């Protein structure tokens, strides 16, 4: 296999990308703030703890059921801050535009960003604009960086999980991944599935305000729930058992997965949070999530079963137990 060029697998959120990040970027940039590779870096400034994160958005198609690249750019970065337990305050927005990109489309995207930020009570305070010649970027690429403040005085990823902790998901999985795939040409599928793209800071704040039981959070984006859980298992060397029947999945998402041979656990989500919660607080956290419109399908999906190999296992619908791994490579429809 030829490794001298970057392939799509390197950007897919699975094993190849993790290796690229570890063996190149982290290796070269290495420092204690970067190395945990959490969704946001936690910085200490005087007495405050700040959370700082960045993401670039290259989604195709630019507009899809449930959102567009702009809404995604705002929500994604807000969420990376929110899952660290931080209150998102400010965003930057950098635009790389292709010559010939229709201004009307740009206006729709920017309008979306503005509305989303306003609703989330986050301000876009700085930015950048570049235009490149036709053909040198695919319409529009957006980078957003975000700054938030940690009210708890620490980032959430620092709390270790223990045996018995519950794994909670805030709602149904797989919609964003399927909405994007269905909107691309070549699939020819008619579905009402919409991306779940949403800013989660309000949902998360409503839980953290009422419960002290949340130990860890992540938004399962590229690579899906499988990537988020395997990363947790690896980083904390804990073993996790998930029950397939407990995982909420919309019928339409299930149907597309069956048809094309995908696993809902591997699909991206842009409006969901997975949490690890103390056993005594798990039911309460689910209840708190369900009170919020974005968390109405929240459920306990599994438990931390111990510490050791850092394995995630799945009890299947049929009753057997199997290993859950990082999704490998690129997602593709399967026929054979």
């Amino acid at each position, binding site marked *: 296999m030829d490794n001298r060029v970057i*392939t799509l697998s390197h950007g897919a959120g699975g094993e190849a990308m993790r290796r690229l990040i570890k063996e190149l970027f982290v290796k070269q940039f290495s420092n204690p703030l970067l190395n945990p590779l959490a969704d946001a870096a936690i910085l200490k400034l005087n007495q405050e703890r700040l959370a700082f994160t960045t993401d670039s958005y290259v989604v195709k198609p630019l507009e899809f059921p449930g959102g567009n690249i702009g809404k995604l750019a705002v929500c994604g970065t807000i969420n990376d801050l929110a899952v660290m337990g931080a209150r998102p305050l400010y965003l930057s927005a950098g635009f790389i535009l292709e010559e010939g990109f229709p201004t009307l489309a740009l206006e729709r995207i920017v309008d979306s960003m503005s509305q989303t930020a306003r609703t989330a009570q986050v301000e876009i305070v700085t930015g950048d604009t570049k235009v490149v010649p036709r053909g040198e970027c695919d319409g529009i690429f957006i980078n957003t960086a975000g700054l938030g403040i940690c009210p708890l005085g620490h980032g959430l990823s620092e709390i270790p999980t223990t045996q018995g902790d519950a794994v909670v998901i805030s709602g149904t999985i797989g919609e964003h991944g399927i909405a994007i795939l269905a909107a691309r040409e070549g699939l020819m599928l008619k579905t009402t599935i919409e991306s779940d793209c949403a800013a989660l800071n309000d949902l998360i704040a409503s839980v953290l305000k009422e419960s002290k039981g949340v130990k860890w959070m992540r938004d399962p984006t590229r690579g899906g729930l499988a990537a988020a859980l395997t990363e947790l298992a690896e980083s904390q060397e804990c073993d996790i058992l998930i029950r397939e029947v407990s995982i909420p999945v919309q019928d339409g998402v299930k149907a597309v997965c069956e048809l094309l041979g995908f696993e809902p656990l591997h699909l991206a989500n842009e409006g969901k949070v997975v949490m690890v919660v103390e056993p005594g607080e798990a039911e309460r956290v689910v209840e708190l999530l369900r009170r919020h419109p974005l968390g109405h399908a929240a459920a306990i999906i599994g438990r931390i079963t111990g510490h050791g190999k850092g394995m995630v296992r799945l009890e299947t*619908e*049929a009753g057997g137990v199997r290993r859950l791994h990082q999704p490998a490579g690129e997602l593709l429809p*399967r026929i*054979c």
Partner: protein
Amino acid sequence: MEPLTDFRNAHIVRQIAREITRVGLDRRVQLMEVCGGHTAAIYRHALHDLLPPGVKLISGPGCPVCVTANDFLDRAISISMLPDVTIATFGDLIRVPGSTRSLADMRARGADVRVFYSSADSLEWARAHPERTVIFLGIGFETTACTLAATLAEAVHTKMKNFRLLSALKTMPEALRVLFTAPGAQVDGLILPGHVTTIVGWDAFEFIAREFSIPCVVSGFEPVDLMETILMLCHQVAEKRASIENQYRRVVRKQGNIRAQELIREMFEPCDMSWRGLGVIPGSGLKLRTMYSQSDAASIPVEVEPSQEDSACRCGDVLRGRIHPTECALFGTVCTPDTPRGACMVSAEGACSAVYHFSSDHHGQ
């Protein structure tokens, strides 16, 4: 009735598993499946976990991507470099390594390689892009062959000049004969491929029970189907019978799908075909009939690098059921889904991929 979920009922699955333990088997039995779809289903639903220790499942040459030798991909890669060519392929093939590169590598270097869920979709795309020559990579067994026959018939009927097939299509019965003739894995029962049999009917496999005294059951793909199939096979073994039974009664008919068989015969004829792990098997492949040669990509003049098979790769042994994927020295260390050495690891239905992704086995870390 829910056609999918009803056949995944965990309670029924558990009860059938219990029935299996009650069958009076006087020895360990090994049951082979020869269908990537079965491999994937067994691992995805973790059915191994539910079987008694005396019943083992092994995988055979059932993954059409895995059994396709390197020269097919090498040829496809060479064709992808020709001007105005678009390679149309099923997703499974994109990351499979040929002798030195994969189609994904070629795409990264600018070749026009497109994934289609259906060959019919690729025909429509070709119609909309008459300036491109679309070459469809035909991998699969009889189930896929009939769909390709239908698409090609449509292409010929509508006088499409820019759509061709590069065929690596294979048929199962001859391969199974070779598999059971040569000494190899102990096979006490055969789980027959449910969708291939949907097309060809089960008479084509009757010789396995008669000549080799191996019990056979045509199986569906849901957990309940596979468990019922295993129960039926265990009964045959315990009763010292060897016949063909049909578990997939709701879909498979004895004579198969006549229309599909007709279309295959109309468009294709048998040819010799090379199978990874089994060598060249006479009459086990399908190629377009001479009268359709203008739709055949096999005759496109192109220089293909001499094909090499990776000598350390043990896909051949895995495909014959001789070794378990974890017994390959490269498994999980050098060979992973992201850095595959052989097709069995990168194909979504390869045995190595299934074990790597779904097994509790602590893989090579």
